[in-house]
């Protein structure tokens, strides 16, 4: 039945129909290119504009027509001004210390937890999973009042340590989820084989599971590290004084009641976005290669 239909179609595709088909395909691919270009512009343009605006002379945006592609004059003055007028290096330092410390605590802690959830079946396992899942659902805004009070009473307000503790906790549920997924891809019998060969539990973990989990750990670390830039509300409420600020708080110091220093703000935005983008660009290829998990799949 279907064979006749295919034959029919071939028979009917005379020259006229063939031309129509080619024209339609051309219009299709033209439309495809137009849509693709539009989408690309929509993705890239806001980002491009930020970089461009950071190279305009100070105050350029106030006195001139909005440049869409390139400004009439260029200047590196915004870049000099932000380091001169704001303690940018201090804020960057704070951001790095907080994110790196938090990542270094989160990874081993979540590794232990996801290992336990994957390898053991015990009473209370499901409740613990729900406990973590709900923890991830709670919005920071719902917890910020008691956290503020608790940190104030414990003397942790306006300290780097306080912000780190808060960051760690809000990163943990996500890290446990992501790592759990990776650990599920590592079959139990690898470890069992090591046990049979005379390893103890810890050796089996260190020599077999840990190396296999490395790509997952790398991906999770990256994910967590980047996520550290986004816990704005926690930093906003828990780190009140300027010298404890992270870069995201500093960004807002350019928006004034009467006028906003667009050029400086955009330069600082580039500074704030750069670490995340660079880390991602460098690790992206490694990550995708690592995700295949090599021998585990076979």
């Amino acid at each position, binding site marked *: 039945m279907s064979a006749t*239909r295919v034959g029919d179609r071939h028979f009917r595709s005379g020259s006229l129909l063939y031309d129509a088909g080619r024209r339609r395909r051309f219009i299709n691919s033209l439309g495809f290119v137009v849509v693709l270009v539009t*989408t690309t512009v929509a*993705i890239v343009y806001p980002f491009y504009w930020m970089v461009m605006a950071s190279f305009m002379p100070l105050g350029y945006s106030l006195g001139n027509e909005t440049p869409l592609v390139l400004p009439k004059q260029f200047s590196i003055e915004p870049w000099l001004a932000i380091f001169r007028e704001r303690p940018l290096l201090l804020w960057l330092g704070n951001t790095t210390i907080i994110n790196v410390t938090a990542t270094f605590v989160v990874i081993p802690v979540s590794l232990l937890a996801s290992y336990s959830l994957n390898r053991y079946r*015990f009473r209370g396992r499901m409740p613990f999973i729900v406990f973590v899942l709900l923890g991830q659902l*709670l919005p920071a805004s719902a*917890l910020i009042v008691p956290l503020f009070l*608790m940190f104030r009473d414990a003397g942790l307000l306006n300290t780097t340590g306080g912000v780190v503790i808060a960051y*760690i906790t809000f990163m943990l549920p996500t890290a446990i989820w992501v790592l759990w997924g990776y650990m599920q891809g590592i079959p139990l019998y690898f470890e069992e084989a090591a046990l049979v060969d005379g390893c103890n539990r810890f050796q089996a973990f260190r020599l077999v599971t840990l190396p296999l989990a490395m790509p997952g750990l790398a991906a999770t670390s990256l994910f967590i590290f980047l996520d550290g830039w986004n816990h704005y509300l926690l930093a906003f409420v828990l780190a009140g004084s300027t010298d404890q600020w992270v870069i995201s708080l500093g960004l807002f110091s350019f928006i004034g009641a009467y006028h906003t220093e667009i050029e400086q703000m955009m330069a600082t935005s580039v500074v704030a*976005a750069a670490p995340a983008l660079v880390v991602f660009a460098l690790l992206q290829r490694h990550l995708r290669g690592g995700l295949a998990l090599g021998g585990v799949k076979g």
Partner: protein
Amino acid sequence: MSISRSTLPWLLLAPAGLLILAIIYVPLVYSALISITDAHLLRFSSAEFIGFGNYERLLARNRLATSLWRTFTYSAGTVVLSFLTGLFVALLLNRTTVLRGLARTLLIIPWATPWLVVTLIWYVMFNPQIGPINEVLNLLGVLEEGHSWLYSSQTAMLSIVIATSWRLFPAVTLILLAGLQGIPPEQYEAAEVDGASAWARFRYITMPGIRTVSITMLTLLTIWSSKLFTMAWTLTQGGPGDATRVLSVYTYQEAFGSNRLGRGSALAVISLLFSLLLVFVYLIVLRRDEEKAEA
């Protein structure tokens, strides 16, 4: 070995469990306790028990209902826009192999940009004086004068939905693209041989193929967008008026703007219930979907 088999798993869970307990669940209970007092930031020690007074006062006003509605609008708008855009781009990229690598890299840009930077970029994009959006609309002849997107109650919500979706849709694209590539091409070839239309192919091959991953993505988008504070706070401070006062912003304003910690905490408890409701709805959808798939 001195550690028994049943304590080891718990020992491994302990660090994570204790941290989550101390920094997420203890504050949660604390929050519930504060919410039944008249606690004020400046005279916290003299807070007194007032029962459900805060809740009654909140429920008696329109503000809470408005804020819930804003949260819903913001979340629904963001989920729909970022999912449809994400799906659309994923379908485009699925058709071509030439640009896929480059497109993946470009897509990472919004996704790897910190939220705060995203808000500032869009703060400038929407700016009535210097924003490129007005400039382009002006050139196209759509708009005569500059429109203040963020400061007009008609467009403020739309603006923050667009900005939020710009940041979120690449995640949708990347994940759906992986799902699309998991669909065996033979299915499409067979359908084409049988003369199935493009719509039929989409409806009966593509959609079932990415159904599960779509539901997961929709759940994540809903959770992310309903929790988000940064966008609505930094772009519009919940305004103009109450046009973008989502729950997270309302909570912050009551607690730290007006220093009414009690009422702020009551709002926190309400927003918790709101998130639980969302998750509950999705669990029902997911279960119904599984039953449908089995049937």
